[in-house]
């Protein structure tokens, strides 16, 4: 964001002058520091290491391999099942009770300012996980194009199944979806799917979950 937020607007009205002065200095540091970089999916995991003899070497993946992993994708994100439990989808969504979330999704490049968050309700007996996603900032797509949300394997980035397809409107778009089966070590990936030549489709990753981003407490 290039606009500088007004500190006074960010805080409750009862902040006193001393505290305000202290927070103003942090505010200046945040503005000066700029936005933290978003880790691309291919950097979610540490490089492989090996120790031979007395010296240590790191076995790095070549860039092309990283790219392949990134494209297949998605998201070496870890998901957060078992940690950071959070109750509470929006109060106004009274019919939906989240067991955990939000699981944030971020993009890079053209979609670096788009955001999405996923909340997951407790599974039913058949292991159906009803979920809701709020997404903001993705561009509206043209005719015959849509976004697809994939469930991914957090360890490999491999797409497991498609959860839903959707389009967006200005502001916040809310999407309800379900995914079945195992919920441990899962991530999500949103791709834009647009018509390509000769009846093909061009799929481009736009948002993905990131490791650790939801492991804090609510």
């Amino acid at each position, binding site marked *: 964001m290039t606009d500088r937020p007004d500190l006074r607007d960010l805080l409750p009205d009862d902040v006193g002058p001393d505290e305000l002065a202290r927070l103003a*200095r942090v505010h200046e*540091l945040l503005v000066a520091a700029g*936005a933290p970089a978003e880790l*691309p999916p291919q950097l979610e995991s540490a490089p492989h290491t090996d120790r031979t003899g007395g010296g240590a070497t790191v076995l790095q993946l070549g*860039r092309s391999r990283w790219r392949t992993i990134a494209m297949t994708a998605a998201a070496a994100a*870890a998901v957060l099942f078992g940690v950071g439990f959070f109750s509470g989808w929006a109060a106004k969504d009274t019919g939906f009770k989240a067991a955990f979330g939000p699981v944030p999704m971020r993009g890079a490049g053209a979609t670096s300012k788009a955001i999405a*968050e996923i909340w997951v309700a407790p599974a039913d007996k058949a292991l159906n996980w009803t979920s809701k996603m709020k997404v903001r900032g993705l561009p509206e797509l043209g005719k015959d194009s849509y976004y697809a949300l994939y469930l991914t394997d957090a360890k490999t980035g491999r797409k497991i199944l498609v959860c839903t397809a959707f389009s967006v409107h200005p502001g916040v778009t809310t999407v309800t979806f379900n995914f079945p089966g195992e919920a441990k070590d899962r991530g999500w990936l949103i791709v834009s799917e647009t018509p390509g030549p000769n009846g093909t489709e061009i799929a481009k990753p736009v948002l993905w979950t990131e490791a650790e981003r939801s492991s804090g407490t609510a």
Partner: protein
Amino acid sequence: MTATLALSLGLPAAAATATIPAVDLRAATDGDLLQRVGTGDRDAFEALYRRYARSVFGLALRRLGDRGIAEDAVQEAFASVWRSARTYRPDRGPGAPWLYTVARNAIADRGRRRPEPVSEVPDTPDHEPLPGERAEAEWVSWRVHRALEELPFSERQVIELAYWGGLSQTEVADFLGIPLGTVKTRTRSGLGRLAAALEGELE
């Protein structure tokens, strides 16, 4: 989450643990982790990577300006950390500055290997910051972003949305589905924690 679970498992009873007691890696200091990495502790390396990958990537992006090259630089920086962690001496200072120096050097090395762009002599004054100023700005960013990572997610979330997400507080409240007052309370709490964490930078 796999990594978190792995971290919570503690350390194997390897020979190294005879001199470095087992600790919860998530609670361990940077210096503790570096010492463990120096003994070849892969779990400690993973923990350190999780803490610093985003900061190192941010530094590399600032320095190199190319995402692909910055990604390579991150790997090389952590390769360098893995190789040289044995040289870290806790009595000479905490781990963060040491790690910053190693990462910065690895990124600079990666930058030097780039082909020089063909450029013309500029006919306007150069407004780029001086090297010292740039180094200072990079260090401050590094510290601020690291401190952000340590915030509870709910506080970090509202701060990131307000400062870099392009959302007003009302929009943050709408997006998260929480009252505006809660957004402001979390922001206040988060900024307060940052103030405590960044005390040295605030003087």
